[in-house]
């Protein structure tokens, strides 16, 4: 009893000490010791003859298996190389990568998300320029203008695109038939709202489109605005927003209408499957007609309903659009860490990964359509590519939208978009309120980037 009281009174005294300590340090002191270099060399030295490379990526089962198989092939060919596979998850992947880059503990080879790479490149000199190693890495398999557009920053090839991909609308043919949806018709924003609302009224169990609040940013909000304005969400070169308040309100109102009319499943229900919409039981039960997904991960959606035939249809295109808004892209990049102790070995492995025919036929389309002409031809000859993936990329090849990867897709701006969409989805703000708030936050963000 007494002991407890004493502890309590000591605690009190402690609290007061803490306050007084705080008081002592209140003067603004310019810290000098906080200026530190982040250059921590990787401590894993060449131990003996074995060289260990760390290779980090994320992906589903198919991608993991194929990538591990390529690693094993390479290790068999090069017994002195050991490649540690660091398979991570999509969720929190970008956070992990940015932390590791910041503190110098990054793996030698990293698969990078397209969204976040420009941000990393602008923050520091983290990645190897593949053009500096022409003897080790053969870039001839890539089409020049493809790697110029994807992976080249200021004339340096800092990242290698892992494939040719696009955003895709996957259709469940059985559900479409059951609900009388014509899959040959070009979807427009208006038709999506109209058909979706009708579908849900007639078949209350069914929904038109399987989405989550993050997908909505990339597949609806931004393309909608791009078709309206012909510009990126944020115009990086001028550091300004590519839309007006009214245009943003319109796009948000559209999302709200879709939720209100049952085009999308209510956010309360789909929240649990955020980031993994293919695990939504309604999708598995065939209660969605369409789902959005990148061409690189179409298999996630189709594998979840193995007995049903799936196809892809063109992305929504407004009749009066400035441009198509959607575009062909690369699903991810591969980068080699500049601080790696074994830069050359890492590059050699990537050369195998991209240019060796065994690797190419093993990897097939696990990262969408292969990026090199050699791999495409080879896989095509052997019939290794999934026809839905090919179809999706073909559909996107004709679209003339422009990529918006950059400030728009930096972690912070992405979060602003997501919050905006969520507050609409949950009916917590009106489109006007959400737009005003987001514009304020983005303005603020743009004022801090240099």
């Amino acid at each position: 009893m007494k002991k407890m009281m004493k502890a309590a009174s000591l605690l009190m005294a402690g609290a007061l000490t803490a306050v007084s300590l705080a008081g002592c340090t209140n003067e603004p002191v310019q810290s000098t010791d906080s200026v530190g270099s982040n250059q921590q060399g990787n401590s894993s030295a060449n131990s003996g003859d074995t060289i260990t490379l760390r290779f980090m990526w994320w992906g589903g089962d198919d991608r993991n298996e194929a990538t591990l198989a390529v690693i094993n092939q390479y290790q068999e060919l090069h017994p002195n190389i050991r490649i540690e596979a660091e398979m991570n998850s999509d969720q929190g992947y970008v956070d992990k990568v940015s932390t590791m880059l910041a503190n110098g503990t990054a793996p030698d080879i990293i698969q990078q998300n397209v969204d976040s790479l420009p941000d990393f490149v602008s923050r520091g000199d983290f990645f190897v320029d593949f053009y500096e190693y022409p003897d080790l890495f053969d870039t001839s398999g890539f089409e020049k203008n493809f790697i110029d557009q994807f992976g080249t920053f200021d004339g340096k090839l800092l990242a290698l695109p892992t494939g040719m991909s696009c955003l895709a609308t996957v259709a469940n043919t059985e559900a479409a038939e059951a609900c009388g949806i014509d899959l040959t018709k070009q979807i427009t924003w208006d038709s999506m709202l109209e058909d979706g609302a009708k579908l849900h009224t007639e078949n209350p169990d069914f929904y038109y489109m399987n989405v989550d609040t993050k997908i909505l940013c990339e597949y609806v909000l931004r393309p909608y605005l791009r078709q309206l304005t012909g510009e990126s969400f944020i115009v990086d070169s001028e550091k300004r927003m590519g839309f007006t308040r009214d245009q943003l309100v319109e796009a948000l109102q559209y999302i709200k209408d879709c939720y209100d009319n049952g085009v999308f499943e209510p956010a309360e229900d789909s929240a649990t499957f955020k980031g993994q919409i293919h695990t939504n039981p309604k999708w598995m039960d065939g209660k969605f007609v369409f789902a959005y997904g990148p061409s690189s991960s179409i298999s996630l959606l189709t594998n979840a309903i193995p007995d049903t035939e799936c196809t892809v249809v063109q992305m929504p295109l407004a009749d009066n659009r400035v441009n198509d808004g959607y575009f062909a892209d690369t699903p991810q990049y591969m980068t080699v860490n500049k601080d790696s102790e074994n830069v050359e070995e890492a590059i050699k492995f990537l050369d195998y990964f991209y240019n060796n025919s065994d690797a190419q036929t093993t990897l097939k389309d696990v990262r969408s359509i292969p990026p090199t002409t050699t791999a495409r031809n080879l896989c095509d000859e052997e019939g290794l590519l999934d026809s839905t993936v090919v179809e999706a990329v073909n559909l996107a090849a004709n679209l003339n939208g422009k990529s918006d990867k950059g400030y728009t897709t930096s972690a912070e701006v992405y979060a602003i978009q997501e919050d905006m969409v969520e507050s609409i989805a949950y009916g917590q703000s009106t489109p006007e309120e959400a737009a005003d708030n987001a514009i304020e936050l983005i303005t603020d963000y743009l004022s801090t980037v240099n």
Partner: protein
Amino acid sequence: MKKKEIRIGITYILLGIFGIIMLFPVIWMFFACFKTNNEIFGSLALLPEGWSLDAFIQGWKTTGTYTYAQYFINTFLLVIPTTLLTLASCSIVAYGFARFDFPGNQFLFMVLIATLMLPNAIIIIPRYSLFNKLGWLDSYMTFFAPAAVGCYPFFVFMMVQFLRGLPRDLDESAYMDGCGPFQCFVKILLPLLKPALFSAGLFQFLWTWNDFFNTNIYINSVSKYPLSLALRMSIDVTSNIQWNQVMAMALVSVIPLIILFFSAQKYFVEGIATTGMKG
């Protein structure tokens, strides 16, 4: 008399029912290891349809490079040295506080108590930056170093309280007999301190084992992941989560704690009772 027996009987039944409710999630977790996803979701049945150990085997193997064997080894490599270092440093510091009346002892002890209240959240960023400068990130040094220098005021406090409860004559007479202070500590006080050491050790083991906030920030390489990070990774690394495997590994990851607890519950309870730890 009869009435009393009935009342006791009712008490037992109520305690039993409430106990089952308390433990129900854990019991459910055990059975979930043998279920398919379809049985786990949308079903009320507690018992699984089959008793295949597949989930344990597949879950243990994982789809990645490392099996749970590696994660278990990592966890032990992280937790055991951290615990031992904590015990060594905290007990000697507690000895310094409890048995020597050097000037400033009381003030320093007050500061120690004050740090009990210091939220981890406030120091995590500068610590991270400090560890970064020292090149310790992504290594277990981030846990060993604070443990080695007694940065767990809870345990120091607990052991000081315990030492104060031991008669001073014990070590003072040994001191008179020519033992040095350190010898006194090792030979006389340390054996007596055993219950407190056990309690502190158990809690430090438990906390480090369960810790997610710090490991998540400090440890980056999958090859160094302890169980907590491996589990977190398991829920989103594969495309179609086999929940029975996740549940199986979650269960396996806490089994050592449960065994430890049942074999040493006396010390747990004592530890909480004497210092009011959050447990």
